[in-house]
């Protein structure tokens, strides 16, 4: 398959997780590690239901609901039991491993002879090009929905919750509830990425989510660097950059592999890359001041 097209498709599949991490990390200021578990959960539920030949209007809501439930659980543990958000996420992620394994019944489910989201509609005769067009449409719809949500009164309250909690409580918002909804939304998006990737690679695996949070983080951090660089305040532009961040991140990894770096070193290289994007702007600020 065309190298660039495959990378682009992966980037689009991961743009949902990037939006999810953007919501939990940038909007709510919560480091949410549930991601690894809810991503696999999305993939696992998709695989299981697709193998049972369930139609898309059953699979898609099921994936979203499962991801949302995982996120809401983390949110509940964090806000109602007053447990550190990081720990709450780790606990739920850890527990989800068993849940995922139980749902699957084995560690890997290949998707054979099933019709996926990508074979549902035909934009192009080449299956990969078709996948690409379906993804473009899918991601555009998600981004539009999230963008609209953030512009509404509810969305403004959401953005303010992570920004100035004392203010938003004085303005009559139940911040606990808001955080639970936010984490549910973030993890529903993450599960969507698992759903997309599973169909793209034609299998779900119990280990598919390990370290996936870095993909979301990397994408958001790239986007953040660009947002700060160009001093962007528009919600729409920021979301577009988050989506681009997901694609850029996949390209960096793909290029790294294609220039001959051993796949064994991939996670190390990825970590260094993320560190560089975070660290470089700070280093240069230090020199100039």
């Amino acid at each position, binding site marked *: 398959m065309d190298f660039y097209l495959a990378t682009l498709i992966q980037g689009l599949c991961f743009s949902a997780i990037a939006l999810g991490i953007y919501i939990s990390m940038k909007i709510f200021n919560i480091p949410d590690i549930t991601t690894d578990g809810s991503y696999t959960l999305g993939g696992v539920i998709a695989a299981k239901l697709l193998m049972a030949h369930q139609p898309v209007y059953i699979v898609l809501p099921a994936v979203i609901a499962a991801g949302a439930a995982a996120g809401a659980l983390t949110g509940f543990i964090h806000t109602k039991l007053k447990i550190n958000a990081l720990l709450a996420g780790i606990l739920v992620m850890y527990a989800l491993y068993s849940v995922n394994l139980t749902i699957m019944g084995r560690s890997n489910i290949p998707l054979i002879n099933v019709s996926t989201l990508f074979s549902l509609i035909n934009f192009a005769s080449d299956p990969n090009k078709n996948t690409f067009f379906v993804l473009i449409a899918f991601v555009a719809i998600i981004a539009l929905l999230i963008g609209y949500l953030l512009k509404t009164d509810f969305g403004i309250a959401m953005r303010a919750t992570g920004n100035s909690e004392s203010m938003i409580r*004085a303005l009559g*918002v139940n911040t606990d509830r808001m955080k639970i909804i936010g984490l549910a939304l973030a993890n529903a998006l993450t599960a969507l990425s698992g759903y997309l990737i599973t169909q793209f690679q034609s299998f779900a695996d119990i280990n598919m989510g390990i370290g996936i949070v870095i993909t979301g983080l990397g994408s958001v951090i790239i986007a953040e660097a660009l947002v700060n660089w160009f001093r962007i305040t528009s919600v729409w532009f920021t979301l577009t950059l988050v989506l681009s961040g997901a694609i850029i991140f996949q390209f960096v990894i793909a290029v790294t592999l294609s220039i001959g770096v051993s796949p064994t070193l991939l996670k190390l290289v990825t970590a260094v890359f993320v560190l560089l994007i975070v660290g470089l702007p700070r280093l240069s600020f230090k020199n100039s001041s």
Partner: protein
Amino acid sequence: MIELRQVHKVFNRGKANQVNAVNGVNLSIVEKEFLVIVGSNGSGKTTLLNLVAGSILPSSGHISINETGVTKLPEFKRSEWIARVFQNPLSGTAPDLSIIDNFRLAAIRTQPKGLTIGVNPKFKSQVKDKIASLGMGLENKTEQLMGTLSGGQRQALTLLMSVMDNCKVLLLDEPTAALDPRSAEIVMKTAERLIDEFELTAILVTHNLKDAFTYGNRIIQMAEGKIIKDFDGKEKSALKQNDLFDWFA
């Protein structure tokens, strides 16, 4: 309007560092009263304000606002009546949101935050008119992030935000403590104008005795969690500024 009966607030009960921050306070504030609370550090005045706001709940006693018992009601539910300006200009606004988004939230303080877009052209022009009344030249910067403004500008906007929605009680928690004298004066003048215009019941906690002397129509002094002086409007206007200084001698 606001009733406190036998209100106690104890921090760290039973421990060596137990603090009886508010110690059996009875206080009744009538409608349109502008109450000033003075007292030295640790006298319990900010705790008292927090008890009214609901950001802390009393250890014992009874609090009611507008003839509704609110003793156990959390802060976000009291926002139906109460708007609040914090000591720290950063606490009353969301720095990473635009001015207009901040105002939108304030405008729907007592209403559910729904899934419709409320920042429409009509709302924008309404906000611009209000901001223009401050005379700070901020009316054309409504898309700017709140965090880019100075403390004085933010505090003045916070005041305006508090009357965007139906508001009965305005709590001012040392609103000018972090401001330079000029900004402080603008903020206090704005507060007085809004309290007057919207017929609000207001509580001002302050260390600034000049403000305590200038503003309000009732003044109380607190010490060790109790009210030790209480002067109504007539008595307050008979006071001289130096009398206030003597209270702290």
